[in-house]
């Protein structure tokens, strides 16, 4: 398999892990998705009586001490058992609202720390936990945060600026975001149903996932194996609306075209799609409109949001892991919640697992502000 392009380094995934409402670990995530399980359960963390939705994908055992943020618990869980990482590794965290539970307590006049409110404090804490001395930053690109961070990290490696980048996306279910999406009338009153003709909105989820990117040289030096590759990436804006996606999907089309060009691939080379698929009426319609402009015939596609909930800033790393598992097993997991596919998604989205055959998978995320990101994942390579 050709990788990297002339004069450019290939970008490999050397390690990854996720914690979501489906549990801890990539195998757990994959097996639960494949079994069609859903982690969406009634919210216990705050009262939902006045909201139209009562479900979310919360991570079990994430109740903090009063002074800390639940984010710290997520970080501890996702990095549990991680192999040592080269200390010079660049760290990119990705989150939309970080330690938002601390802001909630400030507003309520409750005693609280404020150590996870600013973005860099999350990256600093993670670097300390992992012994990383390299550059670090937090990327916020709304619900495309982790996908954008992966694109930037991969570009750094591809251009030979660094040999390893750790990207960690993480976000919490909080009353802040729950009430906000409810106010925007974006929450589903029942389980979310991505690409379903009767979908009514999204259901929030929380989680954390890291993806360790490495050059081939670093992979060899650290005696790791390639779990897959990032072969193309694109980022583009709709320039259309602050909270609603473009009806035509123009920004997503631009992002996918940029990713295809970078990977020197055609749309027909993409064997499957892990779509953003939030289950909101407009997002899913936008994605299908965009895909329809790029593919003569849509490949199998799916969304994890009916199983994990919409994990916002974390979804890009979580779904990259799912995409790599899909490529390895040559199979897309079921789209949980789906009953009757939207007309334009008929024959490509399913409530059952979908086998496919191919080397590349497209992963897309979009967010508030009209930001879109597209990643093209490749199968694991022998190094």
């Amino acid at each position, binding site marked *: 398999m050709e990788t990297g392009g002339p004069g450019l380094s290939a970008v490999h995934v050397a390690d990854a892990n996720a914690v979501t409402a489906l549990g801890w670990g990539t195998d757990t995530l994959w097996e639960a998705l494949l079994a069609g399980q859903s982690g969406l359960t009634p919210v216990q963390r705050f*009262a939902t*009586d*006045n*909201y139209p939705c009562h479900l979310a994908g919360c991570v079990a055992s994430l109740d903090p001490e009063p002074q800390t943020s639940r984010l710290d618990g997520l970080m501890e869980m996702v990095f549990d058992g991680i192999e040592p990482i080269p200390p010079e590794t660049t760290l990119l965290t990705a989150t*939309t*609202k970080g330690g*938002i539970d601390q*802001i*909630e307590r*400030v*507003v*309520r006049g409750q005693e609280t720390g*404020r150590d996870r*409110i*600013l*973005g*860099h404090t999350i*990256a600093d804490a993670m670097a300390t936990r992992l012994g990383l001395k390299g550059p670090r*930053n*937090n*990327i*916020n*690109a*709304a619900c495309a*945060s982790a996908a*954008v961070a992966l*694109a*930037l990290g991969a*570009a*750094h490696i*591809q*251009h030979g600026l660094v040999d390893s980048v750790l990207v960690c996306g993480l976000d919490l279910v909080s*009353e*802040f975001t*729950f*009430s*906000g*999406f*409810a*106010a*925007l*009338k974006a929450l589903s009153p029942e389980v979310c149903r991505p690409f379903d003709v009767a979908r009514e909105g999204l259901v929030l989820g929380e989680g954390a996932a890291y993806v360790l990117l490495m050059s081939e040289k670093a992979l060899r030096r650290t005696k790791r194996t390639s779990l897959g590759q990032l072969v193309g990436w*694109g*980022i*583009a*804006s*709709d*320039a*259309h609306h*602050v*909270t609603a996606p473009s009806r035509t999907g*123009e*920004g997503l089309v*631009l992002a996918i075209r*940029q990713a295809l060009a970078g990977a020197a691939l055609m749309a027909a080379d993409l064997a499957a799609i892990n779509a953003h698929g939030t289950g909101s009426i407009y997002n899913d319609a936008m994605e299908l409109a965009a895909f329809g402009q790029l593919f003569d015939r849509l490949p199998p596609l799916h969304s994890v949001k009916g199983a994990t909930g919409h994990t916002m800033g974390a979804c890009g790393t979580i779904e990259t892991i799912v995409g790599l598992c899909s490529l390895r097993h040559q199979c897309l997991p079921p789209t949980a919640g789906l009953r009757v596919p939207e007309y334009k998604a008929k024959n490509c989205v399913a409530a059952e697992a979908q086998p496919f055959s191919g080397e590349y998978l497209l992963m897309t995320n979009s*967010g*508030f*502000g*009209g*930001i879109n990101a597209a990643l093209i994942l490749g199968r694991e390579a022998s190094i």
Partner: protein
Amino acid sequence: MKLEIAGAGWVTPAGIGHSRSGAPFVLGSGALPRLRSKLFLDAGHPRYGRFDLYAKAGFGAIAMALRGAGLERWECKRPIGLVVGTQRGCLDNDVAYFRTAATDGGALASPNLFAYTLPTSMLGEASIQFGLTGPGFVVDDTHVGRMGGIHAALDLLRFGLCSTTVAGWCDVHSEIFSVDPGEPCGAVFAVLSRAGERAVWQWEEERLTHEGQSVDSIERLVRVVLENAEADGRV
């Protein structure tokens, strides 16, 4: 990588301006001037009144930077990127929003305030107003010279993810995160493009230079842009 910096714009406590306005540039502390959309757009902006101070300052400085670069007007959308470095971002708006949500079990939560609880919303508004379809994102800016956003944007150019980007810094004082009152607040943006070998700006080994001299703060960057504009008779 060689580059051109075609213009700069700012909203600071000392005033509002751009690189062709002839207005003095001072990166100061204290309160920002009263901000209204007609200071930046002849026709005003229908949602500007809803913006928090962070978004008002950032949107205004982006408008000024585009005006300074002669890129304010457009007919077709353009693949120009938008990157901002900030620390506190829209924190005060977060607090204002959650005050509406924390009572009555969320029944009175404000959708208008929630729409601006991401620091990227300001970039989204600017992308809509000026037809900018390039990459857009926010970085946490801990650089001592407030260059975090500029550096991230320079990488976008280097990686070929866009050929022009509006990038800068935006931070306002926050009710719940007190900072030194002498710390600058406001927004400063510049328009950066890839350029040919004869260009005098360079981004190499994580160092921005102009005619070989290091430019390590956003304040210095704007001063050099102003000097160049004056030398070229563009003021």
